[in-house]
């Protein structure tokens, strides 16, 4: 794989070789009940599970003899689980809510079924403009389709703490942000919950900062671009924020970062609209003091860059009962069920269908009503959002983005510079090398 010139052996050959050693060939079977649909997702909060159950029941009633089984995976765990599933060809029929760049990698290796039929069944005209562009890696074929949008790097603020610190306006630039955090820090409250862990959140959030400095990880034709002032500025700023984050931020991922803001331990937050539901459930005291804004950039000249992981729907190529799987995927967009799904995490997963956004049933939700302006801001930001798989509209799709995130090359760059205090030049060159190596390995 890392060497294209080598004879590429198929799976059978490889295992056949094992057989030649006298060990028998584990032939790959498709032993799955004829009418079971397995549905995987990493989005598994209890309220979401409830909405999924509703969608499953509706589908089962409409298709007698079909059973749909929901199976939970997780943001950090899905690469291993998908790998095992693909390797054994015991794949789920439908997988939802994986980030778009994960799909790109699978597509590149011929593991996914084109989703054109599903998009057709949902109605391409119902999507927001360009919602499926990110999935069109091979012209004319879609490796997946969006099931939601998310604006993952919103800046969350506490009006009460800002007032106490005498800060009148939300920060627009990094300097203002750092200053605000410094003034609000104290009496057990930290400034910000930025992640410094070796995990996907740190990689993904740090990419936002690189763009916030006016830089990029790859050039539009996918050459490594980390040896730049913007990358260095981002690292420098990220490091300067360390003292304003809780001590354990070196291990933070999404869950810890979110909980830190929601529990009131930090004055600012960086997350999706999930904050709204969690504050309502866990810390209603601050419900009237929170607000969300686009995350500051290095200066007012640099435009905001919103990280949207483009929660997706995909169908593995070898999924059993392909027709049924496709019908089920399309069924997930049926308004009644889809709205329940969106309401299960209001403001977190935002609709990809403009027809849904316009529906009164969607608008009719306590949290969406209460924070209407913020939800609109997030929808608007997410619609213009990007991620490592597609950094700007000028970029070619990066099918190695999933592998790059999984390799932790970027979060390690953060850890090297911030925690290990390695010299900047060394961090940049090591990171550039790792990225080039990962790009070559495709």
């Amino acid at each position, binding site marked *: 794989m890392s060497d294209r010139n080598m004879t590429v052996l198929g799976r059978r050959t490889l295992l056949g070789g094992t057989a030649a050693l006298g060990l028998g060939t584990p*032939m790959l*079977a498709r032993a799955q009940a004829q009418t079971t649909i397995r549905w995987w997702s990493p989005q598994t909060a209890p309220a979401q599970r409830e909405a999924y159950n509703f969608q499953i029941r509706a589908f089962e009633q409409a298709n007698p003899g079909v059973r749909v089984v929901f199976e939970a995976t*997780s943001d950090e765990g899905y690469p291993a689980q998908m790998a095992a599933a693909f390797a*054994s060809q015991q794949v789920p029929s439908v997988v939802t809510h994986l980030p778009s760049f994960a799909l790109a990698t699978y597509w590149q290796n011929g593991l996914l079924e084109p989703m054109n039929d599903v998009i057709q069944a949902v109605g391409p005209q119902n999507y927001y403009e360009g919602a499926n562009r990110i999935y069109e890696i091979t012209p004319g074929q879609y490796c997946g389709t969006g099931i939601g949008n998310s604006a993952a790097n919103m800046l969350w603020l506490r009006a009460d703490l800002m007032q106490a610190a005498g800060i009148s306006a939300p920060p627009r630039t990094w300097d203002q942000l750092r200053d605000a955090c410094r003034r609000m820090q104290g009496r057990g409250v930290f400034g910000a919950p930025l992640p410094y862990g070796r995990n996907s959140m740190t990689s993904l959030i740090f990419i936002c900062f690189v763009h916030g400095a006016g830089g990029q990880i790859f050039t539009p034709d996918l050459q490594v671009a980390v040896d730049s002032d913007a990358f260095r500025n981002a690292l420098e700023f990220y490091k300067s924020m360390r003292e304003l984050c809780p001590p354990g931020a070196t291990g933070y991922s999404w869950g810890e970062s979110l*909980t830190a803001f929601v529990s009131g331990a930090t004055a600012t937050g960086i997350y999706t609209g999930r904050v709204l539901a969690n504050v309502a459930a866990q810390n209603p005291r601050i419900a009237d003091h929170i607000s969300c804004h686009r995350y500051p950039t290095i200066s007012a000249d640099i435009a905001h860059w919103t990280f949207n992981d483009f929660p997706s729907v995909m169908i593995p190529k070898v999924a059993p009962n392909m027709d049924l799987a496709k019908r089920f995927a399309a069924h997930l967009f049926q308004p009644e069920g889809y709205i329940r799904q969106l309401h299960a*995490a209001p403001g977190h997963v935002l609709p990809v269908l403009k027809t849904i956004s316009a529906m009164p049933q969607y608008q009719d939700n306590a949290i969406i009503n209460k924070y209407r302006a913020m939800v609109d801001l997030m929808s608007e930001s997410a619609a213009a959002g990007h991620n490592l798989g597609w950094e700007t509209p000028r970029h070619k799709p990066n099918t190695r983005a999933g592998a790059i995130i999984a390799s932790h090359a970027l979060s390690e760059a953060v850890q090297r510079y911030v925690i290990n205090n390695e010299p900047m030049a060394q961090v940049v060159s090591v990171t550039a090398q790792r990225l080039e190596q990962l790009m070559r390995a495709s």
Partner: protein
Amino acid sequence: MKRILGRVAFNLFAWTIVLVTAFPLVWMVITSVKPQFELFRIPPTFWPEQITFEHYARLLWETPFLLYMRNSLLLSTATTLLVVTVATLGAHSLVRFRYRGRERLAQLVLFTYLLPSVVLILPLYLMMVWIGVANSLLSLVIAYTTFALPYALWLLRSFMQGIPDDLENAALVDGATRMGAFFDVILPQALPGIISTSLFTFILSWNEYLYALVLVNTDEARPLTTGVMNMLISAFNIEWSLLMAASVMMSIPLIVIFAFLQKFLTRGFGAGGVKG
């Protein structure tokens, strides 16, 4: 008088050590009965201001916890039955019979200790798919034999070496067959050893994490270890109160085993001491 003071001082000292060791587990129980808002108090409250069992109720009625519990029970019981049966026969054979390759075999079993589970996982998974049991409890039972069988075999082998030959010989002189003697004489003698081996096998299977993480990805077959982690640690929340409640409940079967069968457990450990 001095003696009594010395006693008291020693007791105080010893119990301090014991309590420090047990503190994490005590803290787990305390945390599990605190309401969620009290959890995020800075500084933390030591004694809960308000005791609640809502986390336990939520786990039991609103999550697949009981399903995971059932899976873990089935899985550990099945593994224990399979492994102990096979290992008892095997250990008997290794101890009481003589044939070519016997010693070599015993050495190979020792070698399997060195194998890290991560090495075996992917080939094992492919094998499960091949025989059509992938993603099921059975696949985990099979995988668990990789570490439980060598373990049980060694434990039982040393127990059985402690049973005098004369007992079996006497039965044989009385006209019993080898298998008859095995059931009538050896098994009753080995029973404490078998019980203790079963307990260890059960605990090992109950606590396994890595195989369950990779080999199974459906709730229908997920045991507690991976089920609880998967369910409660996610990108949108870390439910510490539920995690602590789940930890307590996961440990309950072990506490029960421990309380009732402690003497077998320690005997299993300690038999080595007797023989040196």
